[in-house]
């Protein structure tokens, strides 16, 4: 059972996220950034929270400023959001993106990182390989 206030917050977050995703799809990057800022405010999360940071980096990539995003990511702990870093390197066409993504797909302790990196290198993730057709 959910409390009404919690449901309201969830609806608010959902609306903001939807608006942000549509803005990204419509190439309205300033609006996407504004929605992300609002999401940070509503959730109380740090701008460096992995789920927030991902969208910050994607917005930067879409602005053609992936290099700035990579500079920032390189200032964080090397084990922090390595999947986002690999994605950033991919868009920068850094030739080493693939070795990092492969390393993460094979060995990262987090299932969602292994899965997304497996997809990035064109491999079927284990989570799907064992799933019924």
């Amino acid at each position: 059972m959910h409390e009404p206030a919690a449901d309201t917050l969830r609806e608010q977050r959902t609306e903001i996220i939807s608006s942000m995703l549509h803005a990204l799809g419509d190439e309205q990057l300033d609006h996407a950034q504004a929605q992300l800022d609002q999401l940070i405010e509503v959730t109380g999360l740090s701008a460096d929270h992995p789920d927030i940071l991902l969208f910050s980096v994607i917005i930067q990539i879409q602005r053609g400023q992936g290099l700035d995003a990579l500079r920032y990511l390189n200032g964080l702990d090397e084990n922090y959001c390595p999947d986002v870093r690999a994605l950033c390197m991919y868009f920068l066409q850094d030739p080493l993106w693939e070795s990092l993504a492969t390393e993460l797909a094979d060995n990262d302790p987090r299932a969602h990182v292994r899965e997304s990196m497996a997809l990035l290198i064109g491999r079927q993730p284990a989570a799907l390989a064992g799933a019924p057709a």
Partner: protein
Amino acid sequence: MSAVKHAFQELGKGIKDVADGIGHAVEGAVKTVGGALTLNPSLMKSGAKEFDSGVKQSVTGVGEAAGGLAGAAVGMSPVGAAVNAMTGGAASRLATGTFEGAASTINGGITGAEDIADGVAHGNFGEVAKGMVGVGQVAMLAVPGAGEGELAASAVAKSATTYLLKDSAKDQLASTVTGQQEPQQA
């Protein structure tokens, strides 16, 4: 002569394949903006629609219906599938509030982020980058134009990825890209 000509044609084709790079391999999933590779916005739009559909279909919230891995793997390019999985997962966690359990781990996972968090909070990566140390040549590069992109990628290979890779990959890097970066033995 024809064999030589054929060899040169093949060589030219190989060079072209390299030059086309990632964009060639995932045609449709990416596009170039000002010389920089970006994601095709249509993929994000598709993800947004999946997210909306998940919200409408799920009684308990967006949950698994928000897109992500299962949808990502079907009929998409690798990068499209990966971005779909990453953004779908993040969007789902943010919407459902499951991010809260991970929040306490954030501060402990960052080294030196306190100095630059304000810049990110305002979405200004450029300002943030100005104050950073340890990024070497990458920090001195402008956002790449068409000609500078290769230089940027090369510099990233030389310095930025030093922070990212384990020893085996570093060895590979040293042997293939930066022969002079190995420390001199006394």
